[in-house]
């Protein structure tokens, strides 16, 4: 464990990524305390104000403080990113375990996954939301569905490489049930690649969720959401570019945090990969 931590800590970008994520988490939890203004109450006399002492990042077209909205938006983005990935991971890992372990399940499961992969991920997510209706829960499902095939593939390849090893065969020979072999012997040994993959997937999930709300398919107003805020600011790009620019920057910081964390975890958990110059 300490060896893993040492390798992780040597990776400067990864530590920054972890710090960014922890910071965002703290901001999301304490949004009510630190936000200078109410994120939803309208204040029309101050509409489209430039950044100032009272409104550090300016205001939007309804006079709402952008900083406060970004702080509250952190809750939603992190929540969607993490829960969508959890949905995708649980489904994908279960399917991948079955496909890798039971030869009869392999072809049917993996061909279904190939079908899902054939759709461009954005169109697939749009289709899911369009079918279920725009809401926070449906965005999580839509974004989660997209990552199911990738999780299934990663898990299946892990199962295939572990299945032939002595300790797994030994467990089966001693009479362990299929479930016991899968969940006590194979799954724990596949944790590190899955962990690395998950943290990268959270980054993608946040991006995709932001795209959905940008297109008007995500959380409905007046709830503050980063992608929606960028989209709302488009109409005022000429006179008040800050309305679009700052929320986009927030998305960028969050996604970058998870990407850096993933890179760091990969180097820390997988000693086979040597440390690369910058990454």
């Amino acid at each position, binding site marked *: 464990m300490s060896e893993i931590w040492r390798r992780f800590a040597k990776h400067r970008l990864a530590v920054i990524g972890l710090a960014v994520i922890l910071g965002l988490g703290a901001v999301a939890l304490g949004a009510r305390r630190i936000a200078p203004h109410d994120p939803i109450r309208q204040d029309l006399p101050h509409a489209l104000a430039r950044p100032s002492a009272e409104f550090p990042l300016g205001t939007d077209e309804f006079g709402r403080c952008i900083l406060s909205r970004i702080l509250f938006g952190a809750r939603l983005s992190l929540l969607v990113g993490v829960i969508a990935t959890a949905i995708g991971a649980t489904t994908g890992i279960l399917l991948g375990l079955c496909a890798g372990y039971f030869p009869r399940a392999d072809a049917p499961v993996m061909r279904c996954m190939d079908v899902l992969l054939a759709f*461009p991920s954005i*169109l697939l997510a*749009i289709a899911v939301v369009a079918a279920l209706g725009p809401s926070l829960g449906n965005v999580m499902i839509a974004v989660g569905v997209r990552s199911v095939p990738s999780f299934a593939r990663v898990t299946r390849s892990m199962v295939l490489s572990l299945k032939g090893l002595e300790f797994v065969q030994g467990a089966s020979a001693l009479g362990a049930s299929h479930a016991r072999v899968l969940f006590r012997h194979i799954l724990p040994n596949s944790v590190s690649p899955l962990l690395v993959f998950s943290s990268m997937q959270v980054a993608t999930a946040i991006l995709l969720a932001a795209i959905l709300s940008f297109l008007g398919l995500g959380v409905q107003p007046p709830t503050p959401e980063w992608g929606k805020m960028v989209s709302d600011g488009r109409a005022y790009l000429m006179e008040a570019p800050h309305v679009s*620019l700052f929320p*986009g920057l927030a998305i*960028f910081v969050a996604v*970058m945090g998870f*990407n850096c964390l993933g890179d760091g975890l990969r180097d820390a958990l997988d000693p086979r990969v040597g440390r690369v*110059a*910058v990454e």
Partner: protein
Amino acid sequence: MAGEILTRFPATLELTTVSMVMAVLIGIPLGLIAAVRRSSWVDYLAMGASLSTLSMPIFWVAIVAIWLFSLQLGWLPVSGRAGPVWHWEGLRHILLPAATLATTSVAIISRLTRSGMLDVLGREYVTTARAKGVPPAGVVGKHALTNALIPVVTVVGLQYGFLLGGAVVTETIFAWPGVGRLAMTAILQRDYPVVQGCVLLVAVVFVLVNLLVDLLYGWLDPRIRYE
């Protein structure tokens, strides 16, 4: 219906092709320089930029580009398509959406080129070539680059096939009359025949591009043969 998709396809084909050409012309030299000058400021700058680009939401890149180049500087039009790319107006209209679409590909291509080059530059045949007295440009350009490019070709092909299915977000923001926007409006209006048509088109194009990529391998690396 088929007519509608087919009239939209040239616009998507044009946008994707211009953006992939941009991505290759910028991404490969960038990765090459980063690999040759490893651990220098050029390397850190190039790799830092590509990691950042991969973390940016594309709609935000598009909006920043519109704000900067159209609204502030007034160089390029905000949106729309004005004829084919070989006309001056058409070229002006395609630059922003194509560049926006290219950002992700540039990042992926430059990272791959860099890691491929670093791998190849350490091989023995490169040392041999150097020892024989092949000039540095020849070693990098001929011996190393052609071998490092194979994974890059795969990704360029995949990315090209993927984008031909319609760059939904970019086409929506820049009001580009392509397949991506058509597919999105069709899904939202529950126009199922059009959705099916678009998905079929995406699948066919994807398979064709992958076939071309496979054939290209043989040309890049004569050891790969198809019986």
